């Protein structure tokens, strides 16, 4: 429920958040957008801190330092490649905070009208978002196997846990028995964990975005529960924007949100044998192929991000162009770990925007491409997606196989994030160039200058 006298600064903060989101949706104004949001956040936080009659001020400052300082330092230090899991973990903490506020509200001796059901809603969503995001973080960070974890009776088991949590909530709301609060929240945490375990690596971006939207909704529910309109409106805003973003991402992967959340991607066993053999290529031969090509398309993937190879890739682009060829970048919507991941990295390396092409824009051009250089991408160029029955079936891919020569730059012989064998690597026109992406691209630039 809304308090009648919210400080006007909250209203201003909400307004600025909306404008910030608007600015962040456009490349030219995006950077200013986050500054606006930051200013609004500082103002709203100060207003909350200066609320008359507030106690524990020292504790509040200590808690802000305890939580905020490590997060700030870590976020400034981790490599750009680890950003997706950082988003996941910070998002989870927001969900956890919403759940903690719910716990305080529900444990109160007297409930304000409507505060209890709204707190139950925020508590449930917040706990799911918290534990789910933590699992997503662990999987992306590589501290936990990223493959889907599958066991018998998984779905019925999960539904049972959710039902038990809702039952606790029902008893709590009906009888007011406060001893239900802890099992209710614990079951919510368990459900978030169980729900994320069977989701495999390839779907993680969509899942993080989904949990981001969930945290927004949890914050909104708590905002309305405690009568804070700034929290309510901002939470709904993020919930709506996050939901749309999630659907856009799922669409880019040709997966429905239901498939992502309940489909256990990457769990299916690969039964069909891949025909052909892997054909390695020497650095010098790869350089010659590039030197005499007139149309080159570079397909970057997570491997480029891991190796921090974007600057070397820019050098390679310059070297190839110096020989008169055209170089384009084919960006799959979910190349890397997140939509836009490659764009961010290539922008960092000063690759002009107009060289980056979407899947739809460039897919027909592979047929007239002399050399397609795949740098650390795997699933997004796997032709298995065109074959019904494959775990990747239906995922839109870059049709790299149509290029005259395909050079795959890859660290080792491992599979992609989905765990599916890549048939492209076995094609007659494909050559494998093994090595660390940054290292190899750097050597390729040197070789190219010698040709």
């Amino acid at each position, binding site marked *: *429920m*809304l308090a009648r006298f919210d400080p006007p600064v*909250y209203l201003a903060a909400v307004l600025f958040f909306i404008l*910030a*989101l608007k600015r962040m*949706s456009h*490349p030219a104004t*995006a*950077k200013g*957008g*986050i500054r606006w*949001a*930051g200013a609004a*956040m500082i103002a*709203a*936080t100060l*207003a*909350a801190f200066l609320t008359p009659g*507030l106690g*524990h001020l020292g504790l*509040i400052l200590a*808690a*802000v330092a*305890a939580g905020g300082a490590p997060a700030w330092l870590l*976020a*400034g230090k981790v490599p*750009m490649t680890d*950003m*997706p899991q*950082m*988003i996941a973990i910070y*998002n989870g903490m*927001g969900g*956890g*905070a919403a759940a*903690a506020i719910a716990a*305080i509200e529900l*444990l109160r001796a007297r409930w304000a009208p409507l505060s209890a059901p709204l707190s139950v809603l925020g508590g449930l969503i917040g706990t799911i978002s918290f534990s789910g995001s933590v699992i997503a973080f662990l999987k992306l960070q590589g501290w936990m196997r990223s493959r889907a974890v599958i066991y018998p009776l998984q779905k019925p088991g999960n539904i049972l846990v959710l039902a038990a949590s809702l039952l606790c909530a029902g008893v709590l709301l009906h009888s007011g028995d406060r001893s239900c609060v802890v099992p209710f929240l614990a079951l919510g945490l368990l459900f978030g964990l169980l729900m994320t375990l069977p989701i495999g690596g390839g779907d993680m971006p969509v899942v993080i975005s989904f949990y*981001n939207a969930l*945290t*927004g909704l949890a914050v*909104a529910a708590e*905002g309305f529960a405690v009568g*804070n309109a700034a*929290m309510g409106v*901002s939470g709904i805003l*993020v919930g*709506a924007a*996050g939901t749309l*973003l999630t659907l856009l991402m799922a669409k*880019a992967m040709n997966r429905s949100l239901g498939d992502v959340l309940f489909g256990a991607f990457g769990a299916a066993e690969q039964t069909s044998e891949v025909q052909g053999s892997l054909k390695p290529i020497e650095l010098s031969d790869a350089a010659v192929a590039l030197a005499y090509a007139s149309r080159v398309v570079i397909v970057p993937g997570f491997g480029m991000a891991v190796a921090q190879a974007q600057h070397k890739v820019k050098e390679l682009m310059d070297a190839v162009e110096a020989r008169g060829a055209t170089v384009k970048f084919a*960006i799959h*919507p979910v190349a890397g770990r997140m*939509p*836009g991941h490659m764009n*961010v990295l290539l922008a960092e390396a*000063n*690759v*002009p*925007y107009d060289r980056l092409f979407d899947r739809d824009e460039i897919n027909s051009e592979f047929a007239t491409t002399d050399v397609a250089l795949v740098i650390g991408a795997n699933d997004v160029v796997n032709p298995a997606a065109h074959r019904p029955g494959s775990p990747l079936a239906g995922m839109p891919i870059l049709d790299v196989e149509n290029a005259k020569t395909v050079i795959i730059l890859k660290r080792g012989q491992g599979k992609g994030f989905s765990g599916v064998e890549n048939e492209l690597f076995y094609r007659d026109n494909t050559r494998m160039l093994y090595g660390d992406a940054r290292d190899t691209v750097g050597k390729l630039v040197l070789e190219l200058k010698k040709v």
Partner: protein
Amino acid sequence: MTPDLWASLYIAILAAFTGFEVIARVPALLHTPLMSGSNFIHGIVLVGAILALGRAQTPLETSIGFLAVALASANVLGGYAVTARMLDMFESGKKKPGAPGVR
């Protein structure tokens, strides 16, 4: 209390449409920064956490409130730093061609 319930509902519905509309035409290259930015915005939960800790009566409420403020602060400060770092990279590029990504 009924008028407040209705007011809350109106606000929620309008905010939801605003959220949809504001990012409806976002180019794919900004998906990740935007997700990160909205992740920062729900850090507004810090306001609720501060009020909860500031009004805590019992030791239990105080401990949970402390946890809430710490978690929310991590959301806010981490979310901001990640987003700002990501967006800083866009400015390091050359002059952008007019309205890239608007389709």
